[in-house]
């Protein structure tokens, strides 16, 4: 889950750029409209200079360290390469063929899928109920909000180490279960392949439910109270109000949250790598595409292969993101008054 996707939904839409602007778009220093030769030559040149100076540094850094590597990744994906010297062993789509034939990759992909689905299924109901409960203007609300957000800001490394220690077979969780008499539930939380993925989901949910609650709370707070008040006057019960008014209006927020959750689930690396390390992940049933990439790319020195995996990850994310935007988010950006989207 990365904050970096924070504005993803509104941005994919690209209307943000041309967004609402008042009084036409006439800027004082001259527009570059195709018809207008209004600006004097000097002002136009000056404007270009300002644009270059202001946006130059950012563009240079961004292209060098983000765009360029990604393009390189695509390039290296066609080679078999040790990571130093020029890439000479061209294998075309050979890496990609290996990727899709490798059962370990398919397992990792499956795990990512499970994580995506379970994250949504587990976190959504709990977070919604909590958000609805906490939406009342009661005393102590801000304290509660702060406290449930704490797991989110702790780095995944720390979360991984802490939980890793707690979930060990002779660790605190098992001990706690015993001391309250639930000793029958002791388990190999981390090493048993049948259980490990659930342990992972437990940790992920622990870390990110607070985030979901905060997002939902923000969405709830933008729903005008008059609506629920009017419904209450008309005799609707609390839960009826929630079901028919609040939840539908919370739709856009939920869809954004789901988008962030999916993207985060696809990119999951730190937690799994910390807890299960590079090797155990595949045998404990918790490998992800990212851990697979690191294990088979960097650790084993096949940088060409690792790049190919990265490109596959990117393409999968892109397809999912575009599909999601087209079919799910389009409803939010089209507006309620325009014709129904197919």
């Amino acid at each position, binding site marked *: 889950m990365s904050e970096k996707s924070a504005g993803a939904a509104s941005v994919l839409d690209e209307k943000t750029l041309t967004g609402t602007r008042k009084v036409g778009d006439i800027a004082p220093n001259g527009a570059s409209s195709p018809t207008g030769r209004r600006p004097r030559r000097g002002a136009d040149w000056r404007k270009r200079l300002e644009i270059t100076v202001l946006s130059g540094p950012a563009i240079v850094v961004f292209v060098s360290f983000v765009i360029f590597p990604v393009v390189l990744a695509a390039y290296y994906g066609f080679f078999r390469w040790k990571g130093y010297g020029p890439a000479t062993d061209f294998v075309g789509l050979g890496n990609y063929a290996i990727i899709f034939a490798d059962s370990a990759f398919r397992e990792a992909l499956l795990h990512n899928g499970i994580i995506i689905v379970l994250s949504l299924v587990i976190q959504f109901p709990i977070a919604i109920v909590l958000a609805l409960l906490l939406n009342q203007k009661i005393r102590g*609300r801000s304290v509660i909000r702060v406290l449930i957000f704490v797991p989110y800001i702790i780095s995944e490394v720390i979360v991984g180490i802490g939980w890793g220690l707690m979930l060990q077979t002779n660790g605190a969780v098992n001990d706690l279960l015993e001391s309250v008499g639930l000793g029958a539930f002791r388990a190999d939380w981390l090493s048993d392949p049948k259980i490990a993925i659930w342990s992972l989901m437990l940790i992920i949910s622990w870390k990110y439910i607070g985030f979901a609650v905060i997002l939902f709370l923000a969405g709830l707070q933008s729903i005008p109270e008059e609506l629920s008040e009017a419904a209450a006057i008309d005799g609707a019960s609390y839960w009826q109000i929630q079901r028919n008014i609040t939840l539908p209006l919370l739709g856009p927020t939920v869809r954004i949250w789901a988008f962030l959750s999916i993207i985060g689930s696809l990119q999951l690396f730190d937690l799994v790598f910390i807890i299960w390390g590079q090797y155990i992940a595949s045998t404990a049933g918790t490998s992800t595409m990212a851990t697979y990439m690191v294990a088979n790319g960097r650790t084993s020195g096949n940088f060409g292969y690792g790049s190919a995996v990265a490109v596959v990850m990117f393409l999968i994310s892109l397809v999912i993101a575009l599909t999601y935007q087209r079919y799910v988010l389009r409803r939010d950006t089209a507006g309620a008054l325009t014709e129904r989207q197919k």
Partner: protein
Amino acid sequence: MRGTRERQKWGSPATYFIAFVFIALCLGPVLYIVIGGFRDNSQITASPAGFPSPWRLDNYLNVLTSPTFWQQIGNSTIVALTTTIGVVVLGLMVSFVLARYKFTGRGAMYSLFAAGLMFPMTVAITPLYILIKDLGLMNSLAGVILPQIGFGLPVTIIILVPFLKAIPDEIEEAASIDGASRLGFFFRMVVPLSVPGVVTTGILAFVASWNSYLLPLFILSDQSMYTLPLGVQAFASQYSVNTASVLAFTSLSMIPALIFFTLFERRIVGGLTGAVKG
């Protein structure tokens, strides 16, 4: 919303109970880590989920007096601060251009940065590692800072552009009537006005940088150059038998993030609120 003069009433006991349970679940593990550091290994082995008896300070003291720990905190601080400054300054400049100039290619420039959201670090890391190596920046903080600035730009720009667009044109016109150039306008008016957006993006950039693990993992090889997450993990695997020490180290490394969070909690949550509302 905060200023409404509503007398806040107490909620129902059920609500508080549920909230309490939830908070206990959230904070329980955190407390486990913190308290665990006050025990020694024999205590932990004998009774993994128990309380310290007696309370031992030496684990925490060992960490606090270890130069590696402070070095790593120093490294993380340098990296996070520089990244944040870089992201904010560069991001603000570009956002200003995108928000208030009209020129062909503006849409393309915006899409360029927006597309950056689709490229997580995991995708770019392998060639990035090679690029950094070729630039001779391996095992240096600069090798971590520069890419982090690059990757932090998309979110920053996406947050700042609507922000800057919201500054009324009238202010800009008034400034130009008063003889200020576009750049002058930028420095003297836009920058102060954009402080709230800058604070939010700065916080996001700082937190992301502070917690970042994958990039430093690839770039930094010397323990003395490690940032804190790397240090925590290295310590944990090196002293894996010494559980108590690991817990102490881990809990001490949580503290900067927690302090930072308590200081800026309103901004962080508010910033997310803003992103949700669009």
